């Protein structure tokens, strides 16, 4: 498989006071591959995704790094070139479908507008088919409805329909099910998985929930305090986690006897800029040594299986 997207040495910080937010992130997405980024709030997972599309919020700037999509560097590209990539070749769906849709515009027209902006087929028939593909029960009535007439799950389906209409090579999904009920979450997970397979699309799924990611992706990237803690296939991550943070996350998923203590990670995640020269996990780690507090562990290993830890876990956890 060929590489679709590679992110190289991406470092982001606040523009004003140069606080480090994302520190030297490297990863690759192959064609047709599905990749998950897992991390807690503030771990830099969303910023990493936004920087792929050149959508960094005001006040955050890219200090270094390259984003290579289909062989071309796009992080320094001009607006027109980016516009060609955004939507056409990389689409993104967000956490809150209500704020992503225009409340004053009927759903059909919004989708047509998006299609027109990207010189795609904006025929009503084509839009109806897109709505049908994502499992909306009556596409015709959806076409002429406003977003408020729909539930959160249905709105997220509309967003997915809109982003798949342009047949992108990569779909970035930033916690699209967090605002939804669990039964609806299940439906959306199945839908995205099915669409990815049907369209031979790559997927980058961002979530704080390891268990959701694990059902959907081939490769998992675990982020912690602005850095990649560990990369590996789902099987490797679950069966043989190397970073103590990953092991802790998996531990908290493991079934415990009723009302027995859950395995938890003590303490709280630090801000990335406060741990720029040490291991970010040192204060919460059971295997901490002097080295962890004085120098920063680099990501070691090959591209598809690497981790950043001086004292990696040994042996299987489960």
């Amino acid at each position, binding site marked *: 498989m060929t590489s679709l997207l590679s992110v190289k040495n991406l470092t982001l910080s606040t523009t004003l006071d140069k606080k480090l937010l994302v520190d030297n992130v490297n990863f690759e997405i192959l064609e047709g591959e599905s990749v998950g980024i897992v991390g807690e709030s503030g771990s830099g997972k969303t910023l990493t995704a936004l920087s792929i599309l050149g959508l960094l919020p005001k006040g955050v700037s890219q200090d270094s790094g390259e984003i290579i999509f289909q062989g071309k560097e796009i992080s320094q590209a001009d607006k027109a070139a980016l516009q060609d990539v955004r939507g056409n070749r990389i689409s993104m769906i967000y956490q809150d479908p209500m704020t992503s849709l225009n409340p004053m515009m009927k759903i059909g027209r919004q989708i047509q507008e998006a299609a027109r902006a990207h010189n795609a087929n904006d025929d009503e028939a084509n839009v109806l088919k897109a709505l049908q593909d994502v499992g909306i029960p009556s596409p015709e009535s959806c076409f002429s409805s406003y977003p408020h007439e729909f539930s959160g799950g249905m709105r997220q389906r509309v967003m997915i329909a809109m982003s798949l209409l342009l047949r992108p090579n990569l779909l970035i999904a930033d916690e699209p099910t967090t605002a939804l009920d*669990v039964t609806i979450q299940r439906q959306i997970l199945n839908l995205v998985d099915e669409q990815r397979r049907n369209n031979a699309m790559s997927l980058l799924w961002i979530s704080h929930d390891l268990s*959701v990611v*694990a059902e959907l992706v081939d490769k998992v990237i675990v982020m912690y305090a602005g850095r990649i803690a560990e990369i590996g296939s789902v099987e490797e991550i*679950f*069966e043989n986690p190397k970073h103590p943070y990953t092991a802790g996350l998996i531990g908290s998923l493991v*079934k415990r006897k*009723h*009302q027995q203590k859950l395995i*938890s*990670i003590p303490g709280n995640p630090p801000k990335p800029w406060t741990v720029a020269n040490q291991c970010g996990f040192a204060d919460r780690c059971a295997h901490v040594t002097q080295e962890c507090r004085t120098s920063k562990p680099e990501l070691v290993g090959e591209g598809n299986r690497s981790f950043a830890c001086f004292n990696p876990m040994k042996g299987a956890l489960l």
Partner: protein
Amino acid sequence: MKLEVRNVTKVYESNSKERTVQALNGVSFSVEEGSILGIVGESGCGKSTLSRIVAGLEEPTSGEVLISGLPRKGIAKFIRKSSKRPIQLVFQDPYSSLNPRQTVYHAIEEVVKIYDHELDAADTQTRIFELLSSVGIGKDLSHRYPHQFSGGQRQRICIARSLAAKPEILVLDEPVSALDVSVSADIINLLLDLQREFNLTYIFVSHDLGIVKHVSDSIIVMLAGEIVEFGSWTQVMDSPKHEYTKRLIAAIPSLENLKIKETGA
């Protein structure tokens, strides 16, 4: 203290009374002293309305809430004079439940002064530190303001604040949904510890059946303002009767559902 909810209905009306929303429809259940009742359901099923009615923040349209066999309205006077509140509520969002201009010490002091007003200054301080340490917040942090704490610590402070009223029943409305995964396990452990230590009764409201089944002795499943399933946690999890409960159970992401097990790797 036993809590009983009898045939509670709640209807919200628009000003013109043209539109009504039936938030709760004939809800009845009871909770034994010292046990944990979990309530699950999706957004809009009425679980938050129910917890607010139990806590006395809303009045039911019809039906009643009995505490130790006494109607909640009847004991209102009696409660006001007593040095404790039987029911306290802990909310989902620890960010908006604390006054940003008040140190944590003062936030707790405020409550202690109401329920332990006979204490002198030194004893008040001891009581405040005792409450904070029961939730794992050290004395040295008590002079800090809410923004200096993380989400998990803030939720601990909210729990300490509700314990200051010496409740016997704690209504926990989505207490961990706003927290990070690695922190939420910590709070669950704390809640289970406190429950045993003070023999509290919990009403644990959540959309997440995975957490509810772990903590609860009995589980209520709600759908569209009605209870569709009520039983001990083993009954509900092992032999669900209602179709919706089955769907909820199937939707819990668990290690068994993972790809690795599917592929047999």
